[in-house]
């Protein structure tokens, strides 16, 4: 069976294992329109549900009259909070220890909040029904500005919390206060500031934005009352968690709930949480005895499901005159909207924001976060970031630039001076994390050399002189950003969601002919898992990736896993895959030893099979071993070749990167041009470079949108003024810059294959690069910090306030 005519390289190429730019298997169906998304699920007798929503941001509900709606042809039912109370589902637990109304109970707390659920034979009839539901409101004072949430005379938003001084994360200081989270050594940090030769202080805001995957949130719920089983097809990033949560709150036994996440049209964190639509569709299916589909429209998506960010970060750095940082002090005011429905692991009310020391060796730091309620949509999500890491990275990267400006130092030089050094890894940060590995200096220097940083700075200096002489109206900015992400949530010792530990899982089953299936607890929303997971297995056990089918998203067949968000798939599920493969390999080795009549220790794994050490012709391929595993296993050994692994990681992983944005801004119009954008990422071992590059492009495009214009904005009366793609900036191919990508490889020491995760890095590192470029452009005119988003109008405003127009 040993074909010696095939070279080693050819055998390796045939596997399409790790490191190979394997073309995606998903694309065969997607390019032909043969994907199967939730809205493609159609069941006999299926009904459609849609919401009556509040036009008021804060109002008491005086009455809801369903009579006219129930007379509309096709309308079968109208659910309100009163109906949900009958099944104990008027309120649901959030992911953050709070509770949230499923349908408005007594009053509404944000514009477009769900008030009633109309169920009809088709979506047009449901829409007619919505228009016929009569709701009488009494308007209440509206609270929009989080900085006034805790004013003495601020309106009471959450009447259900009246008198409660204790929240899920400690004391509540005010009736609109959610939690205060502090971490770090306050005394030591305060002392560092007292002794500081230089310090800076700036209020750095990261505005409210929204993930907006092109497919909105949706589900089909079908309750079989004969069997007592509930099947839910949904846009779920974490299907198993949804199943457990439904079992806990709806009191349906977990084995009688089938959750299926089919193809998902982008997630970006938006599809982690549980939304009223899912609950209402399930209840409606139980009530009507028919399947019920709920499909969110774009306005609903933008105004009611999971915003992102909205952090206002007062940031201080203490340093020496030479530019060595000595302390970091950050206070965050976090606007969580009407319900604290943020998607964060249970123990972290502000997620992993305490990565805010970034890539720098701060001897001491202190962080305090206050979460407050406002009349805005709930549910801050980890939008293309690992739980508030984007905010932290933006905060520290902006602050380092401000410090550099104050010291008269180059921002890149200041960073190089303060980076955690390679020999310090594993590195214990002042705010409690252990960074697994990194080589920041190499990454930064590679970036600076590749873009010829020195000559860009010279060009900028010349342009500034020309501007001062009145020869040009264009200013040039260099946005340097260096980030360390924290991903791979996570180790059960410190990560859980609603008490559910955050491990992940894989089951591999090889069939007699040497082909097999891998079922994984993660759930792709475009990340290409069907392609890359098979590549890990190919390298680990020597079966070609084409012979491994990957399946995810069906709780009946996949092992229990925590799903895909926060760049956790490769760090956690990817490790589970490698470990399951290694279990298979160990059994295969025993079988090979028996067949080749040698001791196991005399065998070595060689690309696609086992070989007797020193005797190259005595070899058994994995394919042969598969056949033998079923049909002639060693005496006493169980037949079959399959394994399951539940992987609880020992630590998070810490990918990092060095980015540079070169931007020109016309001060008279505020129009900017991104001349160049370079992104160097280090995500450890690279499984599929093509997919990594694609993810970096996508993340940078989203970072560009956020930094340069995208915002969920409310007027003073609490109206959302960015509720459609008309007003919410979505970059097209025309304005999106060209991306240059690069990499270094610093494997994670604790991950079985050394991989760290990459999908979010470009968003985490990209936003500060854009913002730093704008701020750098204006800095020579005396400005220290201009708030995002930096659209043309705001750039022009900045120029105006600096007196140059």
């Amino acid at each position: 069976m040993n074909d010696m005519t095939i070279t080693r390289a050819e055998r390796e190429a045939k596997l399409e294992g790790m490191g190979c730019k394997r073309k995606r298997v998903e694309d065969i169906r997607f390019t032909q329109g043969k994907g199967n998304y939730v809205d493609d699920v159609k069941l006999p007798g299926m009904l459609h549900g849609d919401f009556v929503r509040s036009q008021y941001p804060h109002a008491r509900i005086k009455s809801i009259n369903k009579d006219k709606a129930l007379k509309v042809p096709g309308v079968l039912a109208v659910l309100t909070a009163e109906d949900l109370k009958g099944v104990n589902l008027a309120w649901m637990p959030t992911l953050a220890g709070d509770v949230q109304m499923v349908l408005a109970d007594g009053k509404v707390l944000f514009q477009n909040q769900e008030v009633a659920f109309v169920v009809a034979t088709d979506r047009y009839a449901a829409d007619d029904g919505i228009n016929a539901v009569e709701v009488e409101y009494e308007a209440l004072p509206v609270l929009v500005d989080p900085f006034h949430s805790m004013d003495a005379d601020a309106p009471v938003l959450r009447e259900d919390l009246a008198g409660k001084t204790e929240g899920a994360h400690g004391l509540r200081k005010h009736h609109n206060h959610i939690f205060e989270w502090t971490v770090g050594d306050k005394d030591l940090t305060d002392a560092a500031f007292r002794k500081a030769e230089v310090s800076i202080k700036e209020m750095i805001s990261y505005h409210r934005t929204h993930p907006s995957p092109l497919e909105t949130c949706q589900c089909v719920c079908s309750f079989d009352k004969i069997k007592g089983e509930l099947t839910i097809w949904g846009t779920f990033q974490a299907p198993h968690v949804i199943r457990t949560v439904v079992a806990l709150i709806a009191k349906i036994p977990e084995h009688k709930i089938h959750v299926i996440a089919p193809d998902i049209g982008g997630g970006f964190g938006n599809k982690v949480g549980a939304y009223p639509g899912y609950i209402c569709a399930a209840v409606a299916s139980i009530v009507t005895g028919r399947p019920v589909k709920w499909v969110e429209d774009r306005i609903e998506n933008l105004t009611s499901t999971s915003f992102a960010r909205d952090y206002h970060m007062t940031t201080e750095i203490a340093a020496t005159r030479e530019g060595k940082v000595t302390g970091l002090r950050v206070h965050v005011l976090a606007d969580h909207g009407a319900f604290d429905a943020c998607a964060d692991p249970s123990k972290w009310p502000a997620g992993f924001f305490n990565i805010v020391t970034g890539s720098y060796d701060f001897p001491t730091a202190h962080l305090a976060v206050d979460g407050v309620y406002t009349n805005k949509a709930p549910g801050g999500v980890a939008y293309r970031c690992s739980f508030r890491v984007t905010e932290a990275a933006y905060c520290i990267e902006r602050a380092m630039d401000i410090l550099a400006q104050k010291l008269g130092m180059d921002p890149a030089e200041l960073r190089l001076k303060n980076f955690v050094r390679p020999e310090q890894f594993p590195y214990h940060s002042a705010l409690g994390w252990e960074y697994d590995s990194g080589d920041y200096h190499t990454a930064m220097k590679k970036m600076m050399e590749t873009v010829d940083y020195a000559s860009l700075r010279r060009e900028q200096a010349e342009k500034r002189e020309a501007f001062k002489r009145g020869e040009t109206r264009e200013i040039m900015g260099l946005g340097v950003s260096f980030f360390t992400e924290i991903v791979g949530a996570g180790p059960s010792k410190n990560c859980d969601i609603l008490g559910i530990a955050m491990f992940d899982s894989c089951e591999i089953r090889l069939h007699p002919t040497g082909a097999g299936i891998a079922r994984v607890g993660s759930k792709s929303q475009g990340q290409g898992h069907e392609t890359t997971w098979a590549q890990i297995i190919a390298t680990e056990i020597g079966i070609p990736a084409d012979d491994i089918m990957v399946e995810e998203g069906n709780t009946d067949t996949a092992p229990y896993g925590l799903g895909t968000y926060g760049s956790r798939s490769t760090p956690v599920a990817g490790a589970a895959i490698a470990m399951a493969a290694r279990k298979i390999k160990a059994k295969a080795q025993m079988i090979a030893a028996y067949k080749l009549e040698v001791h196991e220790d005399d065998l070595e794994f060689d690309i696609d099979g086992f070989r007797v050490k020193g005797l190259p012709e005595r070899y058994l391929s994995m394919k042969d071993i598969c056949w033998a595993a079923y049909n002639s296993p060693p005496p006493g050994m169980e037949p079959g070749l399959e394994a399951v692994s539940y992987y609880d990681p020992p630590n998070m992983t810490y990918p990092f990167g060095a980015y540079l944005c070169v931007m020109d801004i016309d001060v008279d119009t505020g129009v900017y041009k991104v001349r160049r954008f370079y992104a160097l990422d280090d995500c450890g071992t690279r499984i599929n470079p093509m997919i990594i590059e694609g993810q970096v492009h996508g993340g940078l495009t989203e970072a560009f949108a956020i930094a340069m214009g995208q915002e969920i904005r409310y007027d003073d009366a609490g109206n959302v003024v960015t509720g459609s793609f008309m007003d919410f900036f979505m970059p097209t191919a025309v304005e999106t810059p060209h991306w240059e990508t690069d990499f270094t490889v610093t494997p994670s020491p604790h991950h079985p294959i050394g991989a760290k995760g990459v999908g979010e890095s470009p968003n985490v590192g990209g936003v500060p690069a854009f913002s730093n470029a704008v701020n750098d452009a204006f800095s020579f005119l005396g400005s220290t910090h201009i708030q995002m988003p930096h659209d043309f109008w705001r750039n022009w405003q900045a120029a105006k306030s600096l007196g140059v127009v």
Partner: protein
Amino acid sequence: MTKTHVTMTVNGTQVEGLVEPRTLLVHFLRENLQLTGTHIGCETTHCGVCTIDIDGMSAKSCTMFAVQAEGSEITTVEGMANADGTLSALQEGFRQMHGLQCGFCTPGMIMRAHRLLKENPHPTEEEIRFGIAGNLCRCTGYQNIVKAIQYAAAKINGEEFKEAAE
């Protein structure tokens, strides 16, 4: 609501159906004809995932009534593969150049690129970017989508595709 009879040719086959006058074309395609390749993303003509080809023009089927398509000739993504079932040059281009991730924008993107290449068989990068500006992508940005269209253009024109240097 009174229903209206509509007939049209979709992917070369004559089809008919009864629809309410307010029925959107995208719903007619997806619900009546079971052609689910055409997606719905914004319902305001901004995102382009519902783009189809109608009488030789690109159109967004989420803001067109089915009755407006009476008698017309429509191509959807389901009609884009080669006659022998293999991927067409455009579909192959998206796969080869990694021009998609979640695949939700892909059918609309392919339909728009199809018409773009009919109108302009030799587009520059700038023309491609402008030509697909009505179609949004959230996952993979646009760089590889542009390459996918360049790949298809070369293949259709019988030229060798050369990837531009980074």
